[in-house]
């Protein structure tokens, strides 16, 4: 997967590159719009991450160019300007997603994977976890082909997010940002993730032990899949 990162903040670009390279993406980076414009016109990418606040270029113009020369690429807008209008404009111009800064790298990756699933039309993505079957399309967890009805939407979201980042410890902050990130409220340190995990374990335990769901002491939670 080829990714073009257009971001004038070098420190951020650097981190994006490290993270995406570790996740096996091939990264190309630009710190300004002019060079990005050239690269977009000559190379083909699977993903283009565009920062709207470029010093020399209107990010939205870059988006138009990307749609023209790189029609197959999925464009994700990254911006510190979280105005509603920008978002609407960006999506109208054909951006596949819009991620306001500050964002979690895990969130970026999950959005990229969601776009991939959409693009390649993965009809059914099903994952076996111990005795359980996680159906990411229909959003169910089943045991012996019987969906467990007690699992709530939030609980499924948590399992799916951990599954997406399998074999990686996710901190409580990362998990709560994923499931409550869009809500603006004044709790900054919520340990409600623990309560959710406790509930998930309790509900699954009725059928079988979910020993794939690990509590990493002092750090967070992870789903282990050994292949």
């Amino acid at each position, binding site marked *: 997967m080829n990714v073009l990162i257009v971001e004038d903040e070098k420190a951020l670009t650097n981190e994006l590159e490290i993270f995406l390279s570790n996740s096996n993406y091939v990264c190309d980076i630009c710190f300004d719009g002019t060079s990005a414009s050239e690269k977009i016109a000559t190379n083909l990418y699977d993903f283009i991450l565009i920062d709207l606040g470029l010093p020399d270029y209107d990010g939205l113009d870059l988006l138009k160019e990307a749609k023209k020369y790189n029609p197959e690429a999925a464009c994700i807008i990254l911006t*510190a300007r*979280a105005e509603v*209008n920008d978002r609407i404009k960006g999506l109208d111009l054909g951006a596949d997603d819009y991620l306001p*800064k500050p964002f979690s790298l895990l969130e970026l990756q999950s959005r990229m994977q969601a776009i991939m699933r959409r693009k390649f039309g993965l009809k059914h993505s099903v994952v076996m976890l111990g005795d359980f079957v996680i159906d990411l399309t229909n959003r169910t967890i089943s045991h012996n082909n019987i969906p467990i009805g007690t699992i709530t*939407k*939030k609980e499924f979201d948590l399992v799916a997010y951990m599954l997406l980042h399998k074999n990686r410890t996710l901190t409580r902050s990362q998990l709560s940002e994923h499931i409550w990130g*869009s809500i*603006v409220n004044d709790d900054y340190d919520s340990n409600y993730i623990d309560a959710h995990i406790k*509930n998930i374990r309790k509900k699954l335990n009725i059928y079988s032990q979910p020993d794939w769901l690990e509590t990493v002491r*002092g750090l967070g939670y992870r789903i282990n899949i050994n292949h």
Partner: protein
Amino acid sequence: MKLGTKLTLFNTISKVVIVVLFVLLLPTLIRDINQSYTDNWLRHQKDKVLKIVSGPGINNYIQNGEGYGSYNALLKEEYVSLDIDSLNENIDTIINENRLVERDTIQYRILSHNFRVGKQNYILEIGKSIDTINETTTPLQNIALEILLGMILLTILADQVYSTYVLRPLGLIIKTKLIGHKFPNHTPYKKVKTSTTDFEYLDISIHKMIQTIENTFQKEREFISNASHELMTPISILQSKIENMFEEEDISDETKVRLIEMQKILNRLKSITKTLLLISQIENEQFLKEDNISLSELIHEVYEEISIRLQEKEISCEMDIPSEWILNHVNKFLLFNLFFNLINNAIKYNKEQGEIKITGHTDNKFFLIVVADTGIGINADRIPHIFNRFKKFTQSLQQDSFGLGLPIVKSIADFHKIRIEVASEPGIGTTFKLFFPANLIVNQP
């Protein structure tokens, strides 16, 4: 008391005082006028008599040393007498004196005048009864009183009408420029129509003052908006760095725990910045109001997000919102956050196994949503400050909040013109009442 009423009252009192004084002085005035009139009349009569006497000769009137006398027979209102004067001095006076006329003692205004014809001194007296002089006083006084009272009434009425007319711009300035002013205001300045320069001056002064306030507000909002925007990028960099470091293989668990601490602190910074940005965006009216959603569905969505928190404290939540209430022309994202923060607050300050009730009622022109909890309550003196930013009260049971929950609620409510009333009893609980204007909710059975 209103200025118009004050002016009219002052006018009325001053007029009444002047009129009463005038009416009281009237008898004296009339007497003086009458007296000078009578005196003139007496002198005139004297001249006439002397003219008459000088014609035929004095002896025609005084025969055998007997004086001449004449008066109207019945009423004895006037009299004229001519006699030989025994005294040698000059007399020319007008005085009040009693005279005995046919056994009646009557008070007269008498002109006495002596003159000489040949070697003889004569004295002439002309009198007019005092009663006759005074009998006009009372009717005159009454007429004057009636006319003046009538005039006072008329002028009061005129004053009232005029002062109402002339003071109307003042009321208009207060109503449109002060009470009716909303911040931020995007409508252009409209002059209040008046020909009174004082009011023009007041109008323009208020306008200038409001502009100053408006500018200051605008600057503050811009500052908050810019500051939060500018903070987003550095926060983003830090967050990415921490996340990447966390993944590095040669990092000990001890360091990872410290990275998590950093992540938590960064989250706090992020929450504060995001909240401030949201409030400034609401205040700058950067949100659209184009969503139509069922209110009970919205509350249920909030409930789903928040149920884990209810569960943690074993709080029961009762909801009774008419399912046919549809929110109209609102911003769903904002209203979601309003209810989330309000209910979150009700949980945060509630006791274990407490209760929360969310109910919907109709109240006159309003749709009323009540969120009541059985929490620690708020002291009455603190209620006015609960919507202030960063106002945290020591009674807060949980420390992991920064006092922006209710300010979010307030700015979203203001943006939708929803009025909030708060009632609370310490130790018993707090009730938030949200008054939705009728145009925000459609009752769709």
